[in-house]
């Protein structure tokens, strides 16, 4: 396969080969030196172009249109603007492929992926992109289809790109975490796989992201990064094993417990009793997870578990940073119907977004433009005081439908109240 191409001189990149952290440059060079492989010339020129970027402090990739049959997205096209200097890497597209929830692999499937990517691609794989895709980086236009076919034959499918439902992420959750409040991998698959048409044939105003975290530690960074954040939650009393509390106090000492657990509770809901047991004011616990994170043996989320949904997270462009805000305070996640209800809320929100958002507007920006109360009315979700930090501070609203709103509130309250409200334990 060698075309007699020499390794490019890369004095700047060479400086990223030393040091204790694994070097991506060393990896790129290994690929460039694989003379028996079809990608060796491409990777030599890729190194050359990257060195050129380091020298000139500029990027040299442009987009375009490349795809696979039947799909409108999922391939990130990259054409070089300096192909005259580096012709072998003039096309260097990425295939976004969705991994299993929680990014679990067998060595067998990873080896197969490597074999495919050696045959059709560059041999360079990013594990993973920020949306949670396997990024197969570096493919010629003609090899995109056969590479995808090979991955697809292995049971893997294309992820999202452009104005579409995007690839999702879920935390390790049920697979290996005692904080997990619902079956994240199941919710992840059930929601995303219901809406694959929105992923593979982009037709929304802009991107739409779901992320699934099993508890309020939010390990997938859903509140800040996802349009719809699905956060594990419980609404009964947290579970306290007083024997383990006593053991923890005995081991760490009272002042450690007071300084690092009792006084770190954001709502002052914890008290260390004289007998070294823990008293919890569950009515005022905001489920922040801190004490549970520190005393992993003694404290656990309660049994009445489900999810909280927040909507509208995104970063900077265009109107500035937005976090997701609560649209559903609690949805139980126990039965098949519960999971179907989550899918249904996702569908209603996405449909409203598709119908009402402006081009290139994210959900958070749409809500900022039309108003949260109007949005909730539009998707038909009930409002709740858990959705505000505090009520409005200005009088600039017409309130002549006040009595009707109160009646709706009273009606809504009748439907609640079945669950354990929590108390002292």
């Amino acid at each position, binding site marked *: 396969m060698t075309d007699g191409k020499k390794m490019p001189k890369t004095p*700047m990149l060479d*400086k*990223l080969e030393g*040091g*204790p*952290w*694994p070097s*991506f*440059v060393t*990896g*790129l060079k290994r*690929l460039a030196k694989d003379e028996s492989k079809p990608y060796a010339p491409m990777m030599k020129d890729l190194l050359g172009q*990257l060195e050129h970027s380091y020298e000139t*402090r500029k*990027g040299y*990739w*442009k987009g375009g249109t490349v795809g*696979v049959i*039947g799909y409108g997205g999922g391939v990130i096209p990259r054409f070089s603007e300096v192909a005259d200097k580096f012709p072998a890497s003039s096309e260097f597209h990425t295939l976004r492929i*969705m991994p*299993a929830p929680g*990014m*679990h692999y*067998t*060595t067998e499937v*990873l*080896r197969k992926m*490597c074999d495919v990517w050696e045959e059709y691609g560059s041999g*360079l*794989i*990013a*594990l993973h992109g*920020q949306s949670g895709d396997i990024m197969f*980086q570096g493919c010629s236009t003609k090899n995109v*289809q*056969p590479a995808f076919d090979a991955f697809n034959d292995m*049971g*893997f*499918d294309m992820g999202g790109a452009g104005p579409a439902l995007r690839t999702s992420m879920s935390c390790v959750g*049920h*697979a*290996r975490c*005692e904080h*997990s409040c619902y079956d994240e991998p199941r919710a992840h*698959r059930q929601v995303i796989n219901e809406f*694959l048409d929105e992923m593979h044939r982009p037709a929304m105003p802009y991107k739409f992201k779901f992320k699934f975290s099993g508890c309020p*530690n939010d390990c997938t*960074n859903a*509140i*800040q*990064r996802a349009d719809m954040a699905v956060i594990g939650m419980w609404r009964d009393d947290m579970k306290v094993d007083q024997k383990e509390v006593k053991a923890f106090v005995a081991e760490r000492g009272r002042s450690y417990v007071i300084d690092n657990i009792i006084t770190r509770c954001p709502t002052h809901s914890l008290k260390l009793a004289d007998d070294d047991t823990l008293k919890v004011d569950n009515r005022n616990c905001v489920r922040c*997870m*801190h004490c549970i994170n*520190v005393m992993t043996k003694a404290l656990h989320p309660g049994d009445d578990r489900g999810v909280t949904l927040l909507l509208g997270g995104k*970063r*900077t*462009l*265009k109107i*500035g940073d937005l976090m997701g805000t609560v649209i559903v305070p609690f949805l139980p996640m126990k039965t098949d119907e519960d999971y179907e209800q989550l899918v249904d809320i996702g569908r209603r929100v996405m449909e409203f977004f598709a119908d009402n958002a402006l081009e*290139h507007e994210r959900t958070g920006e749409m809500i900022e433009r039309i108003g949260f109360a109007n949005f909730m009315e539009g998707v038909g979700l009930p409002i709740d005081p858990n959705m505000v930090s505090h009520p409005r501070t200005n009088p600039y609203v017409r309130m002549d439908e006040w009595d009707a709103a109160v009646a709706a509130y009273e009606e809504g309250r009748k439907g609640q109240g079945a669950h354990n409200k929590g108390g002292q334990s």
Partner: protein
Amino acid sequence: MSARRAVESGVPELDPYLHPLLKKNYGAWKWHDRPRPGVLHHVAMSGDEVWTVRAGTQRQLDVHTVRALCDIGDRYADGFMRFTSRSNVEFMVASQSQVAPLIEALGKGGFPVGGTGNSISMISHTQGWLHCDIPATDASGVVKALMDELHEEFIHERMPNKLRISTSCCEINCGGQADIAVNIQHTKPPRINHDAVGNVCERPTVVARCPVAAIRPALVNGKPSLEIDERKCMCCGACYPPCPPMLINDPENSKIAIWVGGKHANARSKPTFHKLAIANLPNNPPRWPEVAAVVKAIIHAYKDDAHDWERLGEWIERIGWPRFFELSGLPFTKFHIDNWRGGRGSLNASAHLRF
């Protein structure tokens, strides 16, 4: 080209890829602890125990590195592995005696074991010059240079709480919110390639993208193009992705800013966005020494002064911003004051002061 149609299979099932012990105890875990940095020990309701060894990777992995990890997985970890959202690899084993050989194999393979608990984990990052179409800097290179410097804090757990870093190659900030975020900040309005705008860009789209309505259609040299009101332009670069002739990237004037105090967990305090610490650092490949110096100064101030369990932003919340600038040695300027919509909410509307 084949005429094969895609099998629209979506997100794959988890079961075939899940370690048998995790499958057996799915949804039934009881507690965990960390016997040493880089090792998690989970105990299931059933009494089963699993040890996880976590190691850093370079994220952009060549097939040889992936296969090296697979070799380790086959030999020491039953042929299973997973990755974290920060590109760390994790191997799960069923007995404590399997942990030491796994750590040794990872060490020999050049993969640092750590990133757990109150450590600095791998930097969450973007594509940069390697693959992005709009980057003003590299991602993998900045991360490699920084992680070399922070390696000791990856392999130990000696920070007050976990510390998470991200890097981003433009103001879209794909690296995300973090305790410390290293992001590009452009400082000059885009130069416009007027010869190309008319052929490449949908001009109303570009006009609509501008957050401050500084762009308007114009005829330049008889060709349809765009012009920018440079007094309004805040150099965000939002016009560049839909219209590459809006040349925002500049080797000299695309600078690096460092932001602090972002947090996504709900633990103790609510999630927070990161705030500006310093800007105007040079974009200086291949090792960005000015960035590393500031990041380390902030980390040292935090490590020395924060209480146990305080995240970086919570530490600043307690000691106040005047003390943060004093302890980190960074200047406070008019550019730290938010003039964007809602910015008044970030001013001190009280007589709570620190001297």
